[in-house]
Structures are given as C-alpha cells and as structure tokens.
C-alpha cells in the first residue's frame, strides 16, 4: 500500500472535468497525477476549460495542462500521455494507479476504463456532464453488505450501446461543480476518509438547482 503522498491518480481526459480535477489535486499536494488525452486545445476548450487560454489553441491538451499546472505548483509530480484510451492500451495504462478518473466524453472509453478497473480491482470514479446536469459515482469499491462483488458501471448503464445518441453540450459552471465533487471524493479516498459515492450515483442539476443521490446495487443481487 502506498503512503498518502505517493498515491497515484490517473485522469483520463483533460477537458471540462479533467482540468478542474487536475487543478484541485495539484493544489492540494496530496498525490501524483497522470493525464491522458490525445486531443488538441480548440477555441471552445479555451473558453470553458479552466487550464487553457487562447494562447494554447492548437497545442496538445496534456502539454498545455501540464505547463499551466507547473506554473501553479512547480514541484508537482505530473506525468502525461498524449494518446487516446483504446482497447490496446487501457489495461496497461490503468495497472500502475491507485484510482482511475473518468473525465472523457465518450461511452466506449468509459466502458474500457470500467472493464480494466474491474479486471484489476481498481477504484473507478465516473463523472459526466451535459448542459447544466452532472453525474458522479464511485465504482469498484467493495462494500460488505453486498457480499462478494462491488458495483461497476455496467450495473447502472449496461453497455455503451445503451447510451443516448446526442452531442454533449457542456458548460463551465457544471464542469466546475461536478469536477470539484469528484476531486473531493478522490481526496477522501487518498486520506482514507468515508467515501460518499460508493454504490450511489449523485446527480447534480444546476438549473433547479438540486443534488440527488440514487443508491443502487449489483445487478445480480435480488434482495
């Protein structure tokens, strides 16, 4: 078991959620982080993703994010991977981390991460946003009451094919609120405090505004 300071966090996707989470983790000095993203910064990203500015447009996201985080805390341990998560690399990328963070914007990558985490027994923090709504859940963390199997993404959302087909619209405020909630859960995990999103999906609606928690169980458990 690694000590608190040596915990390694893998953030997959450095967009709206990923930039918020990375910033919080770097500033709290609680762990080392790795960033995965094969994308470049677009004009829209520069407007609503907190680590980027207009000067970063066209640069690799992982490079721009790393440079900005290093400005904030020069001693931060930040590793970067300029790749997209794929079937070929998912398992090996996940293997050396204590927790894996979902900050991607596609269902296939979410399920790849989930399945790699299930296979290797790694906690998997799911996060997603659309419009003014956000969701957070922590999967693959064992709770005694359900016996043998911890819950995972497939217990709630079945398959990537079951995802609705629409282009996600994300806004800065929901990314900041949802990303901050995810960062807090990671810090609770690192410091061994009570985790809030195990076997529960938190739904945030900034329009009403309201926060609701839905408790769920593994699909095979019938009572």
């Amino acid at each position, binding site marked *: 078991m690694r000590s608190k300071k040596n915990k390694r966090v893998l953030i997959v996707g450095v967009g709206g959620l990923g930039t918020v989470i990375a910033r919080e983790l770097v500033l709290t000095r609680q762990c080392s982080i790795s960033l995965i993203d094969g994308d470049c910064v677009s004009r829209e990203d520069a407007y609503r993703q907190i680590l980027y500015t207009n000067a970063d447009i066209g640069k690799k996201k992982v490079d721009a994010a790393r440079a900005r985080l290093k400005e904030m805390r020069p001693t931060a341990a930040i590793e970067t991977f300029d790749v997209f998560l794929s079937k070929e690399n998912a398992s090996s990328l996940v293997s050396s981390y204590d927790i894996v963070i979902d900050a991607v914007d596609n269902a296939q990558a979410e399920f790849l991460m989930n399945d790699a985490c299930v296979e290797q027994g790694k906690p998997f923090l799911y996060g997603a946003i659309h419009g003014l709504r956000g*969701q957070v859940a922590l999967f693959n963390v064992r709770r005694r009451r359900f016996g043998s199997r911890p819950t995972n993404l497939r217990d709630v959302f079945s398959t990537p094919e079951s995802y609705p087909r629409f282009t*996600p619209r*994300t806004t800065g405020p929901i990314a900041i609120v949802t990303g901050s909630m995810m960062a807090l859960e990671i810090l609770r995990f690192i410091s061994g405090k009570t985790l809030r999103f195990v076997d529960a999906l938190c739904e945030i609606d900034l329009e009403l505004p309201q926060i*609701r*928690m*839905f408790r769920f169980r593994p699909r095979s*458990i*019938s009572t």
Partner: protein
Amino acid sequence: MPIAVTIRDESSITGTTDTLKLTFPSSVITVEELIKRRVDREVRDRSRTRVSAQFSPVRVSAEETILNIGRPRRSAKKPLLVREKKKVSAAEPTIEERYQIALKGFYSNAFFILVGDRQVRELDERIQLAKDTDIRFIKLVPLIGG
C-alpha cells in the same frame, strides 16, 4: 378510502417526461403494490391504444419501453414498465410475467423510485399516501460530456 396520486416519470436528460394518476384502495401501500398497479394501468392503456390505433393515422410504436423515456417522445402516452414485443407473437407475456419483469427491473437499477426526497429500495417498504404525495419513477440516463 381510495386515494388518487400523481406519478411523474423523469430521466436524467429531459427531466419530467410524463405524468399519470393512479388510484389506490388504501392510503398505505408497499412499493410492490405501487409497481404492480402501474403495470396494470400501462397494460390497460396499451390495449386501449391498440384498439384505437386501428382507426388512427398515428400508430403507437411497438418498441416503447422504459429504456426510451430519455428520448424525445413521438406520441403522448408511452408505457414505462410494460415492454412490448417488436412483432406481435402468440406468446404475449401474461400479467404475472409482466409484474415479474417490472419487479426485476426495480432490483436491477432499470428505474428508481423516489417518494418525496426519499428513495425507496425494497419491495416491502411502506409508502404513506396523501393527495400531494410526490412519487417519481426515475430512469438514470448516462450523460456523455466530460
């Protein structure tokens, strides 16, 4: 004394998608009774729609299931718990089979039920009904942005 309550359907993306009124013979019911009453109602509504659809230019889709509640609605009434088969076959599920599918759905996270702010999680859990009791059937739909 019979009591009528309004049930709301919600999904993560679209918010409230539908409402329906259900009447119960008493003011204390179990979650199982709530689900079964809802299945009864949907089966009844569905058979009524099927008969009227013969005379209507707008036919109700055969694949209207709980999984669709997050999508834009093409017709006013879609069953939440009663799954229809794509092709009408001789072996139509019995009402008892439909109950079992819906109850299994409750235990496998296909939908969630909120009574006020409280999530009910067991079939034998009791619900105290009043005219203004807020009951919601919620389908969690994954959001894809990151």
